[in-house]
């Protein structure tokens, strides 16, 4: 199996790493870099727990090879908070009770982060569509939508 040198920027920090060809981005983040905020859920592209933002677009990191991400700029849930100040999305999930067990939360937040980057004032329908590839098994969707609306309403 081939191995590859990759250069990626994650949450503003540059990394130069060696990866096996078959290493998935989610395993690269969690096991190699110990960025365990990104969760593995279904591992088959259905649940969205592993969602991270690559070059501005949310992707399911269980279905991207680490080597495919070579040269890209990645934001994970760890990149939301700055200097102890929560991102409006994190604040929203806190204030609006947007999480119960918390398993889907990083993926939900990163899907929402991708949405808000493209559309600063999404309608409720647009929010629901944007997270339609993210499953919450606590079925806490009502509060998740409220949390994202909260974030969208914050001045940035």
């Amino acid at each position, binding site marked *: *199996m*081939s191995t*590859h040198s990759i250069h990626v920027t994650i949450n503003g920090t540059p990394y130069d790493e060696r990866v*096996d*060809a*078959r290493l*998935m981005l989610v*395993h690269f983040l969690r096991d190699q870099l110990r960025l365990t905020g990104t969760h593995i859920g279904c*591992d*088959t*592209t*259905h649940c*969205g727990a592993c*969602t991270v933002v690559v070059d501005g*677009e*949310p*992707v*399911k990191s*269980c*279905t*991207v*090879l680490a*080597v*495919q991400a*070579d040269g890209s700029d990645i934001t994970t849930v760890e990149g939301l908070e700055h200097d102890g100040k929560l991102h409006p999305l994190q604040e929203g999930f806190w204030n609006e009770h947007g999480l119960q067990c918390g398993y889907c939360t990083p993926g939900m937040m990163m*899907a929402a982060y*991708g949405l808000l980057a493209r559309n600063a004032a999404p309608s409720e329908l647009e929010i629901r*569509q*944007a997270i*339609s*590839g*993210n499953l919450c098994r606590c079925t806490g969707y009502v509060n998740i939508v409220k949390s994202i609306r909260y974030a969208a309403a914050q001045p940035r």
Partner: protein
Amino acid sequence: MIPAPFDYHAPASLAEAIGLLQQHGDDAKVLSGGQSLLPLLKLRLASTGHLVDIGRIPGLEYIKEEGGHLKIGGRTRESALERSDLIRNKYPILYDTTIVIADPIVRNRATVGGNLAHADPANDHPATMLALGAEVVVTGAKGERTIPIDRFFTGLFSTALAPGEILTEIRVPVAPPRSGGAYVKLERKVGDYATAAAAAQVTLNSAGAIERAGIALTSAGPTPVRAVDAERFLKGKVPDRQTIAEAARRAAQAASPSADRRGSVEYKREMARVLTARALTTAVERAEGH
């Protein structure tokens, strides 16, 4: 889940990619968006010695009208189709199709060429491209050749692509005036494959009768199914309710779905009928400019 080991290649040009495919033959697979192939490799339903990633080859992502065709680069992502004003305004059948493929996050990676070349009869673009009378451009060592979409799907997960060829472009004829199309899909939830789905594209003449109809079905057999009998029946007829109902009945007869957790054969065939009628109705409305 971890795929079986393979070598990964990221060619910088089409020629280099074709060379790699030729060199490794059956032991190589093309990686486009990877949203079908990577899960298959992880589940070990597929394996390959060499993965040839076409994602770093410039010039394979575009949507443009040129020379009487809508041209879509083979590696164009579904999300690009979804955000294209040209697609939204002039090719609503393609917009209908892309927004029901998988989910928005998967669509950020999934590609139109991949959706066709994977040749899963449950994929959505094949039926739409059959209804539109599209053709695909494939590029190999000897250059380009064009394959009518009718001859592209040769069996379950099989296409007319020869070893060493890459699907590089999809060409859809620019529709004449008074044309319209629609794609209607029944799915259990967002991200699921179609229980049944129907694509319809019609062109009306000045008297309001059907000049050309293209109808095709998803999840209706081992390959995407073109409903030829229904298309012939419609030609020259004014598409009123009864005519559409009869065309839908004929289209459903062309379906040979298999039973699974999404439903029985009878249910799926009945849904093919209902969805064909809906797709035709919307296609005619759009052709009439409603």
